């Protein structure tokens, strides 16, 4: 058994080396497929970050009547926090709202002066609500429609921003769904291209397979070396794909950062490089090994 396994590896490595051009072509095609794969992983990171940054900008504010006691508002806050859709609720009291307003209009003497001239604080206390997902705002807005709450509420910003929020929610949803479809389709195409390349390489060896069988080689000894070759191609291609992707990501990263704030693609690439290499290795090895396994099968009959 040990002898057979060691011979399978020995034959596989030797054949990979001696079939130089054919091996190089297989590795090159596999590199292309794996570049698609690493591209898809990074695309996912970009779209995740982009949708996250849009989501951060969406919220709804509930403005309470100035007569509503603070306890009541804090009760409502608590009840809102218990909703599954709600991620975060911030309470902004009238005083805090005034502070924010003053700070914002510090440089505008007209507004500052008119505020100072008012004896009472005209600003309403409010709750700022962030949902877990953008399509959950409608449900939260509906919750606020309850009669026992409505008596205290002056206005809800959702009604004003509904169209924009819904549209953004739809965009985010489409980006996620489209990204997933794109990932599946491209991964499938990349896989098929590699499979076909390996199939052609093995087709060119079909006579050799026949000779091995006539000489008395077992199926494992015929198939094994081709699988080893596939695995070598896959591993080499995985390493090469990361080496090629690194400078590209480094170059593109600052441009993407300007476009999507908070997106540090190269930093992500660099800190996750071993995980990415692991994915690439897994994809390359499975693809190379499995393609060889399937491609040789048809020549192992009789």
């Amino acid at each position, binding site marked *: 058994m040990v*002898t*057979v396994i060691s*011979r399978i590896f020995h034959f596989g490595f*030797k*054949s990979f080396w*001696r*079939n130089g051009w054919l091996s190089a072509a297989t590795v090159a095609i596999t590199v292309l497929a794996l570049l698609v794969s690493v591209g898809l992983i990074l695309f996912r990171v970009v779209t995740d970050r982009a949708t996250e940054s849009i989501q951060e900008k969406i919220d709804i504010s509930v403005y309470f009547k100035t007569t509503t006691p603070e306890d009541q508002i804090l009760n409502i806050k608590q009840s809102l926090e218990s909703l599954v859709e709600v991620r975060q609720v911030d309470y902004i009291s009238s005083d805090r709202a005034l502070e924010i307003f003053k700070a914002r209009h510090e440089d505008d003497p007209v507004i500052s002066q008119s505020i100072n001239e008012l004896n009472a604080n005209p600003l309403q206390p409010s709750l700022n609500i962030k949902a877990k997902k953008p399509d959950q705002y409608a449900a939260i807005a509906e919750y606020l429609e309850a009669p026992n709450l409505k008596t205290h509420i002056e206005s809800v910003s959702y009604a004003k921003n509904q169209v924009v929020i819904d549209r953004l929610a739809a965009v985010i949803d489409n980006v996620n769904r489209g990204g997933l479809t794109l990932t599946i389709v491209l991964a499938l195409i990349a896989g098929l291209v590699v499979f076909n390349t390996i199939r052609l390489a093995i087709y060119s060896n079909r*006579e*050799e397979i*026949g*000779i*091995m*069988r*006539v*000489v*008395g*080689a*077992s*199926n494992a*000894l015929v198939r094994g070396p081709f699988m080893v070759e596939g695995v070598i191609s896959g591993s080499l291609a995985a390493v090469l794909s990361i080496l090629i992707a690194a400078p590209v990501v480094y170059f593109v990263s600052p441009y993407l950062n300007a476009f999507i704030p908070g997106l540090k693609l190269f930093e992500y690439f660099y800190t996750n490089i071993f995980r990415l290499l692991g994915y690439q290795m897994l994809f390359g090895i499975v693809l190379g090994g499995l393609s060889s396994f399937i491609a040789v099968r048809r020549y*192992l*009959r*009789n």
Partner: protein
Amino acid sequence: MIVFQNVFKIYNSHAVALEDVNFNVEPGELISLAGRSGAGKSTVIKLLIGEDKPTRGRVFFGQYEVNKLGDSELPAFRRHVGVVFQDFRLLATKNAHENVAYALEVMGRPQREIAELVPQVLDMVGLSDKAKNFPHELSGGEKQRVAIARAMIHRPEVIIADEPTGNLDPFHTWEIINLLQKINQLGTTVVLATHDKEVINSLEKRVITLDRGRLIRDEQKGKYILA
């Protein structure tokens, strides 16, 4: 040792490759399968090594009933025979030494034994100095000698040669025939399929003649006679 029992190979009603062929081969014999191209010689060989199955009839090789062997049993069976083909069938990416060694490697023989035996057999076929050469660097005669070395290195009970001299000039033809005779003298059964009249006549051994799929003659000290 080898028994063909009422063997038919029919591809379709217009292509009958073998028709009711019966013969036995005893251990240590050297027999020639004679006949024109298309007489059915190669079909006999294919059925003998399990590359094809008869439409009817049975093919025995020692304890094996070849026509009943499944894909998984064939490799082990084939290690009992050595086969030499007209087109040499050497592995292009292996050199002469590795091609010969391959027959032992598939049997799981230890590396030390392989390292010892291969040079001996290459020496026997006169190719010691070409051990590192790849098939494309060898002449037709040399390639066939490598093929014979590969066929005999594991000491099979039978060597089957299908038109082994078909691609060779007269000089190399005799070189190969002499080698096959030498192997036979050492006790190995040899089945030689050929349409070379001179080769068959000079051997003065048993000749089985096929014509259009039928066995028309089986003589102990035969000649190449058709019709």
